[in-house]
């Protein structure tokens, strides 16, 4: 369960940072991207998929959260 930090970059893209791995990748897609439900699978630009327990609302960024790796 790595800790991740989500923020927006200058272009407005969602960026996922995994401190343990020094990985900073753009999130291509968020599984649930609605006002009342946000999270689920995060599809990173490098091909990895992380799972973040869906939040009850769209979060205020930056957000530090725990996610786990989804092996496909």
């Amino acid at each position: 369960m790595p800790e991740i930090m989500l923020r927006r970059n200058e272009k407005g893209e969602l960026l996922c940072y995994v401190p343990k791995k020094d990985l900073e990748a753009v999130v291509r897609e968020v599984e649930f991207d609605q006002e009342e439900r946000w999270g689920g699978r995060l599809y990173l630009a490098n091909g990895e998929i992380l799972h973040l327990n869906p939040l009850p609302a769209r979060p205020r960024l930056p957000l530090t959260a725990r996610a786990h790796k989804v092996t496909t």
Partner: protein
Amino acid sequence: MLNKEEAQRLIEEVLAAYPPDAAADRAKHLTVVEEATGEGSCGITANRKSQPGVMTIRGCAYAGSKGVVWGPVKDMIHISHGPVGCGQYSRAGRRNYYVGHTGVNAFGTMNFTSDFQEKDVVFGGDKKLAKLLDEANALFPLNKGISIQSECPVGLIGDDIEAVAKQKGAEMGKPVVPVRCEGFRGVSQSLGHHIANDTIRDFILDRQESTANEAGPYDVAILGDYNIGGDAWASRILLEEMGLRVVAQWSGDGTLAEMERTPQVRLNLLHCYRSMNYISRHMEAKYGIPWMEYNFFGPTRIADSLRRIAARFDSRIQEGAEAVIARHQPMVDAITHHFRPRLEGKRVMLYVGGLRPRHVIGAYEDLGMQVVGTGYEFGHNDDYERTNEDLSNTTLIYDDASGYELEKFVERVRPDLVGSGIKEKYVFQKMGIPFRQMHSWDYSGPYHGYDGYAIFARDMDMTINNPCWKMMTPPWR
């Protein structure tokens, strides 16, 4: 010009000298990038322990904390806690310029050490530290705080510097910051940056919710500029010229008060991503201050950075940025006109620290030069990702190159200029290759900003076109 096959062969040739295990490990740290894709980390493994038995160029956690992050904070006393050597041999070597009276209200170039002896290692050094703190505070009453930079033995014998710091801090009414940056921690100075950032977070930012000054709408802080040869000053004037108010400089020519006030700024401007991204991320999460990276090497990158910074503010600042760029354009044109013909087409190999392997590429390109090899001593994956965006031709990439690898690469690629540290300088000069010491600008500088570009161009010309290179015969001829 380097082509991919040749470079790949060169890497294989270099690796052939190692035993199979070491070669397999080192292979992950060496690569060739043909053209920038802007994505991925150049396919390189970084921030790993160096191979035992090879000569690495890396520093230690103490170097990252005392030498880089904490050291330049000028109105604090930074005690090198442990044997005398670590502090003395790194004293003032980085040329972090500052304004102030050394020994009165600024302490940047001084060396404070607890000078551990055998008895301190056997019986513990806490008593000595307590005495030292009192002494330093009495002798230099204008200090604003003290940081305790641990050297290896402190961690090995398990001294409780936190307890001493807490007690003395309360007695003095000043921040006394214990920094657990013993040299053996981590794989390079990079962890020292992180540890130092964490102590700033824990002991400085949260010490008092500062209300001393009123936050203005254009307040910004410069992070990760260590004012080497005056770099931060050359950057600061550009930001001020465009209408921003620079509240704090971290940490070149910086003060404790500036650091305490940073949580009130509108935007954190981050020059050295590697050493200060941790605190930037923290301030974004805790105080909601956005941060952005910028690059003040070479006119192309400066103009681009100024515009990107201005885009975060209103039209007044945006007009200011355009005015700054326009005002300096004649000067830039004159420099480029003068030096470009002398430097056009020259090839450069770099091997430096946290931001320069990618940041100076633009400045070289402005002068018509080409970077054919670059690498970080202690970069992480995210640094290599950022590097990828800056590369514009086939480039050899080496992470944590050993003395042997670097020498071999340079011998075969034969660039017109090598930019690396002082340990490499004389090796390459003796090989007959012009060299610039790019950690502290070879006793020159500043290189940031428009003023810095003039000096940068002059220095590169001075080095490459120096007549001495034609006069010497290298030993193999």
